[in-house]
């Protein structure tokens, strides 16, 4: 009984925390982008402009929620919900601190990969059901991009699994006692970060929505809260990938002095800022460049990483 209550509480905390951070990112991203472009960013509403989030929410909720008459209604409505659900799910297996986790799955890593693979459905279905050429192009791009980067994302993590000998995220963090995996698994880290950016289709890999060519890509036809869901989904994705980088390569909750949760949040925050910095500094590649980078550089790199890691482990016995 006590166990159940604790678990429910944990779910509420994680859910609330993830959504709170994701909505906070609306403000943080615009503020940081502003700073990196020698501007201030939103600084009017409330202290340092933090109430901008509330203002944006009010705006999104009061917008007309319109379904185009030519769209496939059921799928059109379902698509934004899918992305939020599939991205919220993996938060359940992330260990924020020792024993601070919704559920300690022994295949936590696979669960994360499976859920992020399901996320492809959302954008593809959104593009398809909108029945407009730009949305469809965006959806097609999203499908191709996310499926191919899915491959290296999985492969880049094999090294981590080899070193820690477990698929459970908690065990992976514990295996990093002494040496964080970012050093022995440096190439894994590089591939994972790039695949993570592509997977959340953030700039510079935001080809599915590429506003300069596709209006807004797969969500061109969306308005109101449905658009807001894609928006929140994107920020949740950034938070998730940052949390995963922390867990898999930067020792999760481990760190001196401060309590474990604080370390985890600090590291995650750092990577979120890094994601925003990427957006501020890099241009979007052409579509064929994106695919070429994936299959010609990332795939060999991650395969080599597996071979070398495996070889070293074998040699050490």
């Amino acid at each position, binding site marked *: 009984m006590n166990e159940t209550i604790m678990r429910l509480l944990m779910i509420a905390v994680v859910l609330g925390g993830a959504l709170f951070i994701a909505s906070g990112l609306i403000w943080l991203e615009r503020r940081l982008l502003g700073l*990196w472009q020698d501007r201030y960013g939103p600084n009017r509403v409330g202290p340092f402009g933090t109430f901008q989030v509330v203002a944006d929410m009010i705006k999104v909720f009061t917008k007309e929620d319109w379904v185009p008459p030519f769209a496939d209604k059921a799928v059109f409505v379902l698509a934004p919900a899918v992305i939020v659900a599939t991205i919220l799910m993996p938060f359940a297996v992330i260990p924020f601190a020792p024993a601070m986790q919704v559920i300690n799955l022994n295949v936590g890593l696979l669960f994360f990969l499976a859920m992020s693979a399901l996320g492809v459905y959302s954008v593809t279905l959104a593009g398809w059901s909108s029945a407009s050429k730009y949305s469809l192009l965006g959806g097609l791009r999203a499908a191709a991009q996310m499926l191919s980067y899915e491959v290296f994302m999985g492969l880049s993590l094999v090294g981590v699994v080899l070193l820690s000998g477990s698929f459970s995220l908690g065990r992976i963090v514990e295996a990093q006692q002494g040496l964080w995996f970012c050093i022995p698994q440096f190439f894994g880290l590089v591939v994972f970060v790039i695949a993570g950016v592509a997977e959340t289709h953030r700039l510079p890999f935001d080809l599915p929505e590429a506003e300069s060519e596709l209006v807004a890509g797969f969500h061109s036809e969306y308005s109101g809260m449905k658009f807001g869901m894609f928006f929140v989904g994107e920020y949740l994705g950034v938070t998730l990938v940052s949390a995963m980088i922390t867990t898999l390569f930067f020792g999760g909750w481990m760190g001196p002095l401060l309590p474990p949760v604080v370390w985890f949040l600090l590291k995650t925050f750092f990577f979120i800022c890094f994601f925003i910095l990427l957006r501020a*500094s890099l241009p979007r590649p052409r579509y064929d460049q994106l695919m070429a980078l994936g299959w010609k550089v990332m795939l060999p790199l991650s395969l080599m990483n597996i071979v070398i890691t495996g070889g070293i482990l074998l040699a050490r016995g």
Partner: protein
Amino acid sequence: MISILRTIWKVFLHLFRKRVTIRYPEERPSLAPRWRGRIVLSRDPDGGERCVACYLCAVACPVDCISLQAAEDEAGRRYPSFFRINFSRCIFCGFCEEACPTYAIQLTPDFEMCEYMHRNLVHEKEDLLISGPGKYPEYSFYRVAGLAISGKDKGEAENESAPVDVKDLMP
């Protein structure tokens, strides 16, 4: 690859730069004297209206937002009986100022002219007319023009010689 990392680093360093934003209502932007903002009608140094209602500004205006009606007073001076600028249409191009032969119409460095009602953006002559000479303090059209008005006959303007009697044959 190196260039990408270098780009990221350079952009990161912008965090410590000075901001270019001017936080407007608290900080005022500095506007050049020739900034093209709210339009005024100026007066000559004696306090008379400069505008001679020649319609040149109305013709030059690319969006047709000036309308006026010419009239003449007992002294022989032309003036606009009404002068109206629709600022909801004006694009602040400054063509009217260039077209004006008397420096009457001038654009000023003031842009704070928002209104809640569209029709309040239509400024009438009493809104436009200012009490001073604006940008050209010394200039007075009738003092340099060869036009006769009461109190100033032909040939009495500055830099003007007395009129020649064309029927007189004497050297």
